């Protein structure tokens, strides 16, 4: 006869086994159609490009070298690949500006929503949610309607006689930036609003009672309390901006590439799959660094507020 303890242990073991069986379909699908292929990308980054795309199974570190460097075709010396560097720089700087500017507009918006009466508050939140769930491509295309040469902005400015020639906004970095701000703004507003909703305005009142000015209250009371929302929003905007592909493709034209477009180029016309794989992994590492930064900050601010 097994003792009661052994029976309990056996039951627990069976429970854990059943839980693995139950989660198996999800884990298997994700392994086959998401995680597993990522491991293959790592392998591909160390192979030799095939003549018509694809790879030749021969070890090489050239893919990784050419992420940032290029070999001179005459004397084989290595130099920084300016084209790639400028794409890295564009990706990182545009993502940074997008984050800062969405914060600049998103913070007052979230504050505005959080200070409405509860009934109308829901309507405002709903108004932010609709663009959030609308197809990204459609929103990018909508932005194109505003900034293209015959678009809303140029038509209005010309009708008002402010400019004679349409402003060339399309196919510039500014177009990409505008598109990313527009598309990712809800991702900034919603998490800040979620923190702001829980803000206790009695603390704000206490601040005023102690002779703080509006700016002081905002900086010393409101901002520290909603910091987790600001950090979450910034990460939610920064990460997809870094990996943006559709927005630069539609609004930036062929020349103003970001990392996503550079990766596609290597798998398409560039026919350098190992280089494309190496850039993909670089992009993933950049994203992971941003995520780690977030996790560290999130756990720290959680600790600070108990």
């Amino acid at each position, binding site marked *: 006869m097994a003792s009661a303890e052994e029976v309990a242990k056996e039951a627990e073991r069976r429970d*854990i086994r059943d*839980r*693995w069986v*139950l*989660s198996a*379909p*999800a*884990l298997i*699908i*994700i*392994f*086959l*159609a*998401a995680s*597993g*292929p*990522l491991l*293959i*990308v790592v392998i591909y980054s160390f192979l030799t490009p095939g003549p018509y795309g694809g790879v030749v199974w021969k070890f090489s570190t050239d893919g990784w070298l050419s992420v940032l460097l290029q070999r001179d075709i005459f004397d084989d010396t290595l130099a920084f690949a300016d084209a790639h560097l400028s794409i890295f720089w564009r990706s990182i700087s545009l993502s940074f500006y997008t984050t800062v500017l969405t914060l600049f*507009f998103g913070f*007052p*918006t979230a*504050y*505005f929503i959080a200070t409405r009466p509860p009934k109308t508050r829901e309507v*405002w939140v709903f108004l*932010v949610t*609709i*663009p959030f*769930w*609308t*197809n*990204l*491509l*459609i929103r990018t*295309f*909508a*932005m*194109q*309607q505003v900034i*293209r*040469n*015959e678009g809303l902005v140029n038509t209005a400015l010309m009708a008002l006689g402010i400019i004679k020639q349409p402003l060339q906004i399309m196919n510039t970095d500014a177009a990409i930036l505008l598109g990313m701000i*527009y598309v990712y703004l*809800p991702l900034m507003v919603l998490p800040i609003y979620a923190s702001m909703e829980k803000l206790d305005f009695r603390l*704000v009142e206490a601040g005023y009672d102690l002779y703080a000015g*509006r700016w002081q209250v*905002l900086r010393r009371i409101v901002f520290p309390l909603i910091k987790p929302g600001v950090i979450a929003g910034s990460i939610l905007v920064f990460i997809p901006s870094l990996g943006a592909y*559709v927005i630069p*493709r*539609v609004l930036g034209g062929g020349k103003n590439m970001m*990392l*996503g477009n550079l*990766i*596609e180029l290597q*798998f398409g016309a560039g026919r350098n799959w190992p280089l*494309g*794989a190496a850039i*993909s992994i670089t*992009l*993933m590492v950049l994203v992971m660094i941003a995520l780690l930064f977030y996790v560290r900050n999130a756990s720290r601010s959680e600790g600070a507020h108990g």
Partner: protein
Amino acid sequence: MAKRPFDIQAQPGFGFMALLTFFALYLPIAALVTYSFNTADSLSRWDGVSLRWFISAWHNSAVQDASVRSLVLAVSAAALSTIAATMAALATTRTRPYPGLTFKYAFINQPLMVPEIVTGVALLIVFSRIKVWTGYSGLGYLIAAHTAFCIPFAYLPIRARLDSMDLTLERAAADLYATPWKAFRFVTLPLLRPAIIAGFMLAFVISLDDVVITEFVKSGGQDTLPTYMLGQLRRETSPEINAIATVFLALSVVLVTVFYFVNRRKP
């Protein structure tokens, strides 16, 4: 009359900034919809209002194909991912931590953490090989890819609901000699239904909206509505693309509204 009391919530300029933001959020959408009613042949002119391009899009066989494919794909991926996510949620909630639990969380959420373009090229590498080996190039690849990245979205509301549900009712059912299956079928499942519907709808919208991964996984002639539109945007665009976008937009708004009300109804 007394002086207006000091409003502790007011911040100068914030209301203006917020209204400006809302205006900026809806202006491009308004422009897109307006141009879809344009009669002219090209987007650079405005010739008056008509439904010309809606009718033209409706009769365009490429658009019809892409729409049907998008719907079939979204329904299949949403159904499969919701089933897998429900099972996974049952396996990862209401339990003491056990070996592998954190791993499961991380693994299920993994598709959310990797840029779409990277998943796209990864699947391109693997699936193009499998296509050559097996000779099969049907919709199965897209369904598998979409199911994988929809799972975390379907998992989210279902797990949240299970976390907030207490075990009392299921224990009561077990006390009354219900088998585990019966307790699940008649107690847990009905309580979980709103979350399952929410998960399904989230997955459906996510699948319907996907451009990047689909662009890399699809075989020739397998355009979905978003990839078809992306292809059209490369060329000189006619207002037909606006008409398609407007209909797509309307569909999204309907889905979001339904989702909102399904979710808001408190149990």
